C-alpha cells in the first residue's frame, strides 16, 4: 500500500491509526509502553509517599506548610482542558479535516505551555520561599523527582506535538502520519491521567495530612 496515497474525507478509513500493519503495531506497542509507564510512575509515587515529610530537622518546611492549592488547581484545569482539546484534534483527524486538527493541536500545545509556566513558577516559589530544594531533604528529592518526571513528560509531549505539526504542515494527513498523531495524543492523555493522581495524592492529600 502506498503510504502517501491521497484521501478525501470520504475515502479516509474509519480508524486511520490502525489501517496499516505499521499503524497497528505502533498503536499496540505504544499502549504497552504506557502499561510500563504506569509501573514507572507507581514506583515514583511509592517513593514519594515513603519519603513525604522526611526532613533532616524541624526547620525544614513540610507539605502542609507549602503547597499552593489554588495555583495547582488552575494547573489541573489547564491540563484537563488540553486533554479535551486534543480529543477534538483527533476527532478532526478521523474526519480528515487537517486544518481543524492543526488548530486544536496548537491550542493543546498552548495550554500545555501555560501549565509548564505555572509549574516552573511553583517550583521557583518553593525554592525561594521555603528553601525546599532537590538537595535539601529526602522529601525534596522525592517531590521534585515525581513532579519533575511528570513535567519532563509534558515537555516531551509538547516537543512531539510541535515536531509533528511542523513536519506535516505541508503534506496533510495520510496513513503514514495518522498513527503518529494518534499515538502522540494518547501520550498526552496519559500525562493527564498521571497528573490527576499527582493532584490528588501529592497536593490534595498532602494538604490534608
Amino acid at each position, binding site marked *: 500500500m502506498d503510504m502517501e496515497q491521497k484521501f478525501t474525507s470520504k475515502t479516509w478509513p474509519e480508524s486511520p491509526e490502525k489501517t496499516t500493519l505499521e499503524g497497528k503495531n505502533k498503536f499496540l506497542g505504544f499502549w*504497552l509502553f504506557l502499561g*510500563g509507564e504506569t509501573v514507572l510512575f507507581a514506583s515514583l509515587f511509592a517513593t514519594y509517599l515513603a519519603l513525604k515529610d522526611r526532613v533532616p530537622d524541624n526547620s525544614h518546611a513540610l507539605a502542609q506548610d507549602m503547597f499552593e492549592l489554588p495555583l495547582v488547581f488552575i494547573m489541573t484545569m489547564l491540563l484537563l482542558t488540553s486533554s479535551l482539546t486534543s480529543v477534538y484534534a483527533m476527532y478532526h483527524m478521523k474526519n480528515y479535516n487537517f486544518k481543524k486538527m492543526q488548530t486544536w493541536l496548537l491550542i493543546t500545545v498552548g495550554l500545555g505551555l501555560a501549565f509548564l509556566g505555572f509549574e516552573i513558577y511553583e517550583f521557583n516559589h518553593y525554592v525561594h520561599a521555603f528553601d525546599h530544594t532537590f538537595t535539601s531533604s529526602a522529601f525534596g528529592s522525592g517531590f521534585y523527582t515525581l513532579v519533575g518526571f511528570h513535567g519532563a513528560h509534558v515537555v516531551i509531549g509538547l516537543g512531539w506535538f510541535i515536531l509533528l505539526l511542523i513536519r506535516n504542515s505541508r503534506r496533510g494527513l495520510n496513513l503514514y502520519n495518522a498513527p503518529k498523531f494518534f499515538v502522540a495524543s494518547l501520550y498526552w492523555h496519559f500525562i493527564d491521567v498521571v497528573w490527576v493522581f499527582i493532584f490528588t495524592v501529592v497536593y490534595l492529600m498532602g494538604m490534608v495530612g
Partner: protein
Amino acid sequence: MVGGLEAMVIRIQLAVPDSNFVSAGLYNEILTMHGTTMIFLAAMPLLFAFMNAVVPLQIGARDVAFPFLNSLGFWLFFFGGIFLNLSWFLGGAPDAGWTSYASLSLASEGHGIDFYVLGLQISGAGTLIAGINFLVTIINMRAPGMTYMRMPLFTWSTFVASALILFAFPPLTVGLFLMLFDRMFGANFFDHTMGGNTIIWEHLFWIFGHPEVYILILPAFGIFSEIFATFSRKRLFGYSAMVFATVLIGFLGFMVWVHHMFTVGLGPTANAIFAVATMAIAVPTGVKIFNWMLTMWGGSIKFTTPMLYAVAFIPSFVAGGVTGVMLAVAAADYQYHDTYFVVAHFHYVIIGGVVLGLLAGTHFYWPKMFGTMLNETLGKVTFWLFLIGFHLTFFIQHFLGLMGMPRRIWKYLPNQGLEVGNAISTVGAFFMAAGVLVLIYNIIITQVRNERVGNDPWGDGRTLEWAIASPPPFYNFKQLPLVRGLDPYWIEKMEGNDRMTPAEPIGDIHMPNNSFIPFVMSLGLFIAAFGAMYQVDWRASDGAEYGWAIPVLVIGMLITIGSMAVRSLKDDHGYHVHKEDLEKDDEEGGRL
C-alpha cells in the same frame, strides 16, 4: 565469557584459605562484575538472540514488529555493556555486589558505582524496548491460523518473559535514577541523615530482581519444551496446562520479592505472607516438570546433544528449585540468607536451568541459524564436562553455607572447617571451563568445515521454523504459511507434505530499510553518560571536577534527541522485494 573468566578468578581465590591471589577491593569488583555481567550481559542477551532468531519463524512472521526498535535495543544494550566494562580501565569497577545495596553503594568511592548505574540504565532501556517489540510481534504478526493456543511454547515463554520485562524494568529504572540522582546530583533518597531510606532501594531492586530471574528461566523452559517434544517425537504433554503454568509463574513472580529481604526486619507479617506466596510458585513449576517427563513417557527418545542437556536439566533444576522452596521458609532463611547456601541455590537454578538451556538451544538451533551442524561428539564431551563440573562446584556449596560461610567474602580464615569444600568447588569450576573451551573449539571447526544442511536437519522438527531453509532468507517466508494446528510442520509431515500450505499468493514483500539512527542514538546516550559521571567532583578518585563534563552531557543528550527528531522527520517507507526476485530465489535452490 568475561563473566566466566571472572568466575574462575573467584574460584581460584577461594580455593585455599587466607589466599592472596587478588586483593580485597579487587575481589569485590570481580564478584560484582561477575554477577552483573552474567545476568545482564550474558544470559539475557543470549536468550534474546534466540528469541529474535526463532520467534518470528515460529509464528510465521516476516520479521519482528519494529525492526528499527530492534536495532535500537541492540545498540543501547551494546553501549550499556561497553560502558559498564570500561570501568575496569577508568579507575575501578563497581564493588557493591550486583544488588548494589544503597548504603554501601553510596559510600563506595571512585566512579565504579556510577558505571554500574549508567551502564545498566542504558542497557536496561534496550531490554525494555526489546520486550515491547516481542510482545507486539507475537500479538500482531502471527500467520493465518496461528491462534494463541497453537503457539509453540518457546513463543509463549517469550511472550510471558517480555511481559515481565515490561513491568519489571521500570522499577529498576526508577531505582537507578534515584541512585544516579543521589550519587551525581546531590539528592537524598538513600541518605538517612537527610530523611532518606535505604530500604527503598532494596525494594525497588527486588521488585525488579525477582521477576528478572523468571525472565531468565522462562525462555529456557521454552527451549526445553521444544527439545523434549522434538526428540521424543511426541506432542508436548498437557500443552494448555503448560501455557497456564507459564503465565501463572509470571504472575506470581511479582508477589514474592520480599523473600530476598527476610532478614531486613520488615516484621513477621510481611515475612510470613511473602514466604507462603513464594512457596506457591513450586506448584506451577512442578506442573511443568511433570509434563516434560510425561512428554518423554511413551515417546521415542533420541539422545542428541540438545536432548542430553534437556534430560540433565530436570534433576539439576529440581534440585535448585527445591532449595529455593527451602529458602522461602522465612525463619530458616535467617540462617541461609547471604551464605553459600544461597549461592548454591541460584547457581543450581541458573546453570542447571538457564545455562543448560542456552547450551541446549545453541546446539539445537545452530543449524537453523547458521546452516551448519555442530559436531555431536564434541557436543557430548562439552556436555559431560560441564555437567560434572557444575555439580562438583555447587553441590558442596550448600554445606559450606550451612557450615557458616557467608557469601561475598574475599577470603576465609583457616581452621573454620571450610577448606575441603572450597577446594572441591574450585576443581569443579575447572571442569566447566574445560567444557566451554571444547564448545568454542567445536564452533570454530564447524564454521571452518561449513557443511550445509537442509531445512529440518534433526529430522523430527515439529514447528514452523523447521519448514524453511537454514538459514532462512531475510524475508523468512516467501508466502505466509497456513497453520492448521499445534505443531503445524509435524501435521503436514504426517500427511505426507514436504512443505507448508501457503496462505497467500506470491506477491511483493514490503521490507523496512536498515537505519543508522539507532546506533547514533545509543552513542549519544553513551557520551552523555560520561558527562553525567564526571561532573561530580567529590566522587572522583583524583578529586577533580572536569570542566568538560557538563558540555559533554549536553552534547550527548543533543545527539540522542537530535537523532530521534531526525527519525521522526525523515519518512522511511521501506522497500519492496519483488515477486520476480522471490521466484528467482526459489529457482536458485534456496529452499528445501
